[in-house]
């Protein structure tokens, strides 16, 4: 299991949700909320798959957040 922590100052919650929805079919994703972070736990069929899904999910959340910032500065 890999735990991703997205800081709320950096990532938009909607962007993290969109990334989770996008990658839910590739691994088991569990979301929760910490005081300063959005937390996503990734559980895959193998360690390599977990690593790939977690990395791509992070990139997707980053891109979605940047897109939202451009759309509504």
């Amino acid at each position, binding site marked *: 299991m890999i735990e*991703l*922590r*997205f*800081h709320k*100052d*950096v*990532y938009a919650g909607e962007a993290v949700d969109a990334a989770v929805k996008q990658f839910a079919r590739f691994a088991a994703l569990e979301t929760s909320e910490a005081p*300063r972070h959005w937390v996503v736990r990734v559980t895959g069929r193998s360690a390599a798959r977990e690593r790939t899904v*977690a*990395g*791509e999910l*992070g*990139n997707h959340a*980053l*891109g979605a*957040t*940047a897109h939202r*910032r451009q759309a509504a500065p």
Partner: protein
Amino acid sequence: MAALSSIPAELAGADLAAGAVHLTVREEIYPLDAVFAAAFTFIKDAWVVVDRADDAHWKVVLTPKAAGADAAALETQVGAFANELLACAYRHRLAAANRATVEAVTNAALAGALGPPSFDELEQFDFSNDAFEDPLGIAQSWEDKYGKKAKPDDGAPAGASDGADDDGGAA
């Protein structure tokens, strides 16, 4: 966490076991939009996570997608990211400084693209050619302002000159 030879340890470090490298940058110098822009250029080759190190610093973690990156490869990656981040921060600052100019040019271009005025707009347009106020005489021509003043006895007919300045008939 291993230190990198070319970058101070307080700014960057590598986790060789995880195949990841991190860079810590000051928020005051590198705004979040610049960090995003730089990170965006790296998401093809690496997994990028941006975090807040403390109240004044961002922490960017890069994990190359190709497994087995050694210390040299990680150092190259974080060095390239630092350069890209610097360029993005500079472009961000230029864009902020030139925002008013860009908006003025864009507005002028959009106004021109609206096309010719309609008949209603032409009907309301003021076509009168009334002179504007010119108390300093800026709009006067040079001849009006500094030209020869006509003398009172300068009433001779045009063809009655003595021919001194007539260079056409001497030959």
